[in-house]
Structure formats: structure tokens, C-alpha cells
């Protein structure tokens, strides 16, 4: 029998999850719409004065992105669990940690990447100068990656629970706080015209750390949840 290599299996899993996501357009659009709506509510609630908004922009963008990225997390493994395909995945003979990376990557592509892509527009509406837009995108790219990995652990752990979304937020948000602090700080520094390299490097280090450890944790959590 000609076995599929682990890399090919991970690629197939990534393509499968993307195809599934694009058959549920509402789920794909939900985080971006939420992100856009929350950030546009702030000028209405606080002040249309760009100077004031600029001071809050880093925090607003990051909190809105964090909550938007949380929205899709609950569905990461739930449908697979319900229809039995998760069992088949666990029994596929492929390293489950690798398949978990592929699923997390697909989730980021569908939920995290669109947030990064629309963030410059929303940042401009909050008075962020054009020179800081790169930092906005980079910090959110790193941050949504961290959140996808952390969130996948939470989603795998709460899989067997009927209403796991509350617990999922409680599990994931405290772990994401360091990323929020450094991410928002990076944007603030860039808005003031200072170098944002330090916080961005810390964010990148956090991403490397969660990408290294999360797949093993997700794999173990999925095995426990499938029992």
C-alpha cells in the first residue's frame, strides 16, 4: 500500500478545511464583519477627533481583532467531532500534531488573515498614520497566529462540552494577554514614530513558542476529547 506522506497529509487537511470553510461563507465573513463593526463603533462612541482616536487606536484594533478571532474558534473541531471525521483523523495513522498544525493554519487563513488584510483600512479610520500601517499589519499577523494556536488548544480541550464557548474564552483570553500587551504597544510606538522592533520581536518569539508546543497539546487534547 502506497501510504500518504505526513507532509502530503497535512497539505490535504489544509485544503480540505479551506474548501469546507468556503462552503460556509457566513462563518468566514463573521470575524471580519465583527472586527469592522467594533472598530467603527469607537469613533461614534468616543469622539470623531482623529487625535483622540489615534491614542486609542492600538488598543482598539487589538481588542477588536482578539474578540473577532475568538468567534470562529469554537467551530474549529466541533463539526469534525460531531460527524465522526475527527475519529477517522485520529485513526488515519498520520501524526495528529501535524494534522492539528494544518487545521490551525487553515483556521488562521480563513479567520486571521482577513483581519490582517482589512486592518490598514480600519487603522486609517482611527487616524493611524500611513507610516505605522505596516506595524499594524505585522503585529496583527503575529497576534492572530498566536491566538489561532492558543485557541486551537482551548477548542480541543472543550470539545466534549455542550456549551464550551464560555470556557473557551476563559481559557484562551488570559493566555493571549501578553500578546495583546506587546501587540498594542507596538502599534502605539509606531504611531508615535518610534521603532516598534522590540515588541514585534517579542510577539514573534511568542508565536514560535506556541507553534512549537501547541500542536502536541492539541493532539493530546483531541485524543482525550475523542474518548
Amino acid at each position, binding site marked *: 500500500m*502506497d*501510504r500518504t506522506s505526513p507532509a502530503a*497529509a497535512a497539505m*490535504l487537511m489544509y485544503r480540505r478545511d479551506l474548501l469546507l470553510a468556503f462552503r460556509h461563507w457566513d462563518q468566514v465573513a463573521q470575524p471580519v464583519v465583527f472586527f469592522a463593526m467594533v472598530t467603527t463603533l469607537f469613533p461614534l462612541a468616543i469622539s470623531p477627533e482623529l487625535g483622540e482616536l489615534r491614542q486609542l487606536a492600538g488598543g482598539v484594533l487589538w481588542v477588536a481583532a482578539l474578540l473577532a478571532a475568538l468567534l470562529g474558534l469554537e467551530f474549529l473541531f466541533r463539526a469534525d467531532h460531531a*460527524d465522526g471525521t475527527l*475519529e*477517522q*483523523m485520529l*485513526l488515519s495513522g498520520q501524526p495528529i500534531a501535524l494534522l492539528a498544525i494544518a487545521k490551525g493554519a487553515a483556521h488562521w487563513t480563513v479567520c486571521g488573515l482577513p483581519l490582517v488584510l482589512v486592518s490598514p483600512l480600519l487603522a486609517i479610520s482611527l487616524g493611524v498614520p500611513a507610516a505605522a500601517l505596516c506595524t499594524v499589519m505585522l503585529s496583527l499577523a503575529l497576534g492572530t497566529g498566536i491566538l489561532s494556536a492558543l485557541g486551537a488548544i482551548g477548542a480541543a480541550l472543550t470539545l466534549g462540552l455542550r456549551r464550551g464557548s464560555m470556557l473557551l474564552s476563559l481559557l484562551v483570553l488570559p493566555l493571549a494577554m501578553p500578546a495583546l500587551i506587546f501587540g498594542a504597544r507596538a502599534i502605539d510606538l509606531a504611531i508615535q514614530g518610534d521603532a516598534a522592533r522590540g515588541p514585534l520581536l517579542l510577539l514573534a518569539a511568542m508565536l514560535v513558542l506556541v507553534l512549537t508546543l501547541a500542536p502536541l497539546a492539541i493532539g493530546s487534547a483531541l485524543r482525550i476529547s*475523542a474518548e
Partner: protein
Amino acid sequence: MLRGVSIDAAAGDCVHVAGPNGSGKTTLLRVIAGLLTPEQGSVTWHGRPIAADRDAYSGSFSYLGHSDGLKPEFTAHENLAYEVGLRRKLGASSIDETLARVGLTQSRDQPARSLSAGQRRRLAMARVLLTAAPLWILDEPFTNLDNAGMNFLSEVIAQHLEAGGAAMLATHQPPAIPRHAVCRLDLA
């Protein structure tokens, strides 16, 4: 739940796990598949505990559980391409041949959610066939199948045994596998 259960299957063996509802048939099959870890006792494959190399063991059997393990959004063809593709490389025509074998050629491009329960069971069986694993672990495989489907499945299991495979089935009715004696394990 399971105490004092000992079971041994060699190539060409068909084991029928029998027992009333709640006697642990599904639990036993899930333990054998490695989805549940027993508190005591062990499961071995070729003399080695399955926990020693879980991925290699998983690659050597095909499991059909209570749920069909199909994505409702995917067509019959996509379901097989993605689910079996994770395990082995598939030839260009192998999926269509298997769909024809289980009588689902007409439903090739239909989403799984629009198939009847019996057709979904046939599609799940197509996955087992395509996986081409030596051991089949089938939990209530005859559920929702019509008479023709049941006869077909029995014949397919017989052919699998003749090709040197082994099968474990949990069913309420004793399975009639053509040309083969079935070893019965009663959990009552």
C-alpha cells in the same frame, strides 16, 4: 465494563462481537481501535502493544463507527478523496471504481447530506474498502442497509477474509458471511 475479555484474530478470521444493548460491544471495538485506553489489560498487534507505535497500528486497520465519518458538505467523491487520501495515495480511477462497486455511481457528485442513511452507510463502507487495510473493525455495519446492501456487505467481508484480511464486527444479528465460519464473542 469489560472484564475477562480475551480475543485473538488471525488473518482470515471473522470475529462477531455479540451482546445486548449496553454490554460494551462498541466500547470493546473502540478499545481495540485505540480510541479508548483500557484501565487494565492490553491490545497487541503482531505481538506488540498498540501504544508502542499508535500511528503505525492505526494505518493497518479501518474503523467504521456508529457515525459514518462523512462530511455532509462534501460530495461522495470528495469525502473519499479527502478521508482516504490522508491514509494512502489514490489512483485516478480508484474512487470511481469503488463508488461503482458500492452502487453509488449516480451519487458521485451529490453532497453527503442529501444521501439517504443507507447510501451514507454504503459510502462509509466504500471508505473502508478503499483504505485497503488488513483489519476491519466494523461497528453495526449493517445498520440502515437494505437486503441487497446487507448481502453485498457480507460478500465484501468474505472477499476481504479470502484475501488474507481479518474482520471484527459488532452486530445484534449474527452475520452470515458466505463461505466462512464466524467466531462469536458474547459479552452478555
